[in-house]
C-alpha cells in the first residue's frame, strides 16, 4: 500500500478527505449563505412593504409627512360607504372575469390551431407573441390612438361596411370604454395563455389522445372528455396568472381612460393610485389596494395545489 502511494506523482494534490473541511465544503452552511442575499432582499422589500400596506390601511397617513396615526377600521368604513369604490370593485371583477373567459376560449382554440402542422407555423407563433412582449404602456397608447374619438379606424371600417349608423365615442361612453378596456386585456393576455396551453398539450401523453381517435370518439367528445380534462392543470395555471395580471393591472385603464368618463371605469388599482398617490391619502389608498389581497391569496393557494397534485401524480 505505502509503496503504491509513494509511486504516485508528487505534484498531485492530496485527496480532499485529508484536507481540513472549510466553509467551501460545508454544503448546508454554504447553501444558506448563498441563499441569504436573495431571501433578505425579498423579505425586506416585498414582505415588509406588504405588511406596511396592511398597517397603512388602518392609519391616517398622508404623503408629505411621515406621521402615522392608528384609526382602526375608519378607512374601510369610509371606502365601503363610497359608491365610487364599490363601482371600482365591480369593474375589477367584471374586467377580470369577462376577459379571462374570452382569453381561455381564444387560447384553447389558438393552441389547437398551432398544434396542427402547417406551413408558416413558426411565423404565426412569433407574431402571436408580440402583444405579450411589448411594454404594456406602449401597447395601451397604440390602442388609445386606435379608439380615438375623431380618428378611430374602427369607426371608419364599421361605417364603410355599413355596420354603424351613428358614431362610437369610445372613451366618452361608459359601456364603450369598458369594451375597449376588455379588448386590450384580451389582446394582451391571450397570446400568453395560448403558449402555456400549447406547452401543456405537448406534455399530455400522445397515446391517450390517439387511443380516443382510434376508438372513434367525435371531435367534440375528444375535446370535452379527453383533451380538456387532461389540460385542466395547465389551464388552471394559465387562468390564475391571467386573473392576477388582469385584476391588478393599472397601466391599461390608466392610459386608456384615466378612470373616466365620469369615473365610470375606475378599477381598484387606478382608484388606489388616484386617492393614495395623486390625492396623497396613503391610508385610504392602501385600504383600497388591500382588497386585491384575497385574489392574490386564492391564486397562490391554487397554484400550490396544482403543483402538489402533479407532483403526486408524477
Amino acid at each position, binding site marked *: 500500500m505505502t509503496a503504491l502511494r509513494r509511486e504516485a506523482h508528487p505534484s498531485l494534490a492530496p485527496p*480532499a478527505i485529508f484536507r481540513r473541511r*472549510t*466553509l*467551501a*465544503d*460545508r454544503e448546508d452552511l454554504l*447553501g444558506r*449563505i*448563498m*441563499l441569504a*442575499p436573495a*431571501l433578505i*432582499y425579498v423579505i425586506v*422589500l*416585498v414582505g415588509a412593504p*406588504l405588511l406596511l400596506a396592511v398597517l397603512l390601511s388602518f392609519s391616517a*397617513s398622508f404623503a408629505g409627512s411621515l406621521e402615522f396615526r392608528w384609526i382602526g377600521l375608519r378607512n374601510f368604513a369610509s371606502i365601503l360607504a363610497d359608491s365610487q369604490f364599490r363601482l371600482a370593485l365591480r369593474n375589477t371583477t367584471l374586467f377580470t372575469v369577462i376577459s379571462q373567459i374570452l382569453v381561455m376560449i381564444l387560447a384553447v*382554440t*389558438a393552441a389547437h*390551431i398551432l398544434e396542427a402542422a402547417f406551413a408558416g*407555423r413558426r411565423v404565426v*407563433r*412569433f407574431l402571436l*407573441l408580440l402583444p*405579450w*412582449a*411589448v*411594454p*404594456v404602456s*406602449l*401597447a*395601451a*397608447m*397604440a390602442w388609445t*390612438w*386606435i379608439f380615438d374619438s375623431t*380618428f378611430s379606424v374602427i369607426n*371608419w371600417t364599421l*361605417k364603410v361596411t355599413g355596420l354603424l349608423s351613428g*358614431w362610437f365615442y369610445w372613451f366618452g361612453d361608459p359601456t364603450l370604454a369598458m369594451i375597449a378596456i376588455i379588448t386590450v386585456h384580451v389582446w394582451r393576455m391571450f*397570446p400568453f395563455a395560448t*403558449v*402555456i396551453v400549447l406547452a*401543456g398539450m405537448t*406534455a*399530455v*401523453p400522445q397515446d391517450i389522445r390517439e387511443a380516443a381517435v382510434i376508438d372513434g370518439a367525435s371531435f367534440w367528445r375528444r375535446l370535452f372528455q379527453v383533451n380538456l380534462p387532461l389540460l385542466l392543470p*395547465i389551464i388552471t395555471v394559465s387562468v390564475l396568472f391571467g386573473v*392576477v*395580471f388582469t385584476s391588478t393591472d393599472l397601466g391599461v385603464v*390608466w392610459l386608456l381612460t384615466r378612470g373616466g368618463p365620469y369615473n365610470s371605469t375606475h378599477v*381598484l388599482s387606478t382608484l388606489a*393610485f388616484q386617492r*393614495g*398617490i395623486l390625492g396623497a391619502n396613503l391610508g385610504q389608498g*392602501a385600504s383600497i389596494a388591500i382588497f386585491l389581497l384575497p385574489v*392574490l391569496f386564492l391564486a*397562490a393557494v391554487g397554484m400550490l395545489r396544482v*403543483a402538489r397534485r*402533479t407532483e403526486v401524480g408524477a
Partner: protein
Amino acid sequence: MTRRRWLRRVKRIALYAGAALFTLFAIFPFYWMLLTAFKTNRDLYVGATDLSHIPWIFNEPPTLQHVQLLFLGTPYLTWVRNTVLVGAAVVVITLVCAVPAGYSLARLSGRWGERLGIGIFLTYLVPPTLLFIPFARVIALLGLQNSPWALVLIYPTFTIPFCTWLLMGFFRSIPRDIEEQGLIDGYSRWGVIRAIVLPLAVSGILTAVIFAFTLVLQEFVYALTFISSVGKMTVSLGVPVALVRGDVFYWGSLMAAALITSIPIAIVYNLFIDRFIAGLTAGAVKG
C-alpha cells in the same frame, strides 16, 4: 374517398383561416403603429367620418418627419439612456442575488429548498398595485423621490424572484454526475460551482439577464409613481406620458417610439419564450 379528401381540404382551409384571424388580431396594433409612424400629418389627421379617405394605407408617400422629431425634438434618447442605466444596475443586483440563490435552492437545500423556491416565486405574483403605496412611504423616508435610484432599489423586488426561479430550474437541469465527479476529483463544493457549474450555466444566466432587462423595460407603475420630471423618465413612462403638447399627442412620434422600442424586445422574447414558459409552469407540465 373523394368526399374524405374534400373534407380534409375544408379542414385545412379552416385551419389557415383560423391562424390568419388570430394573427391579424395580434398584430393589428403594430401595423397601426407602423402606419402612424410614417404617415404625413395631412394623411394622418383626416377625420374617420370622411369615408372616401382610406386610413388603412399610405395615401401619400411615407415620411420620416415623425422619427426625426422623436430623436431630435423630444427627450426620447434621454429616456433610452435612463432605461439602460437603471436596467444595468438592476441586472447586476439581480445576478448577485439570484445566481447563488438559484444554485442553493437547486442543490444545497434539500426538501425545504423546493418549498422555499415556490415561496420566492410566489412573491413574483405580489403586484406593484399592492406595493406602490407602502413604497411611497419607504422612498420618502429614504429621500429618493423623483430619483432613478428609487427604481434601482424597487425593480429587483420582481426581477430577483423571477430570475431565482428561472435559474433554479436551469441549475437542476445540469447533470448531478458531473458535479459529483468534480467532488471526487478533489474540488470543494465551492470549487465545483466556480469551475464546473458556472461555465455550464452561461446560457441560463444570459437568459436571466435578458428577462431582468425586459422586465425593467416593461415596467410602468413604479416609474409612474416615483418619477415626475421628464428628464429622469424611462422609455415606458416617458413615451405615453410626456410626448404631449398641452392636450395634443404627437401621435406620429409616439407610435414611432412604441414601434422602435417594441421590436427588439419582441424578438428577444421570442428567442427565450420556451424557457420562460417552462419556468412559469414547472410543476404543472411535469405530467
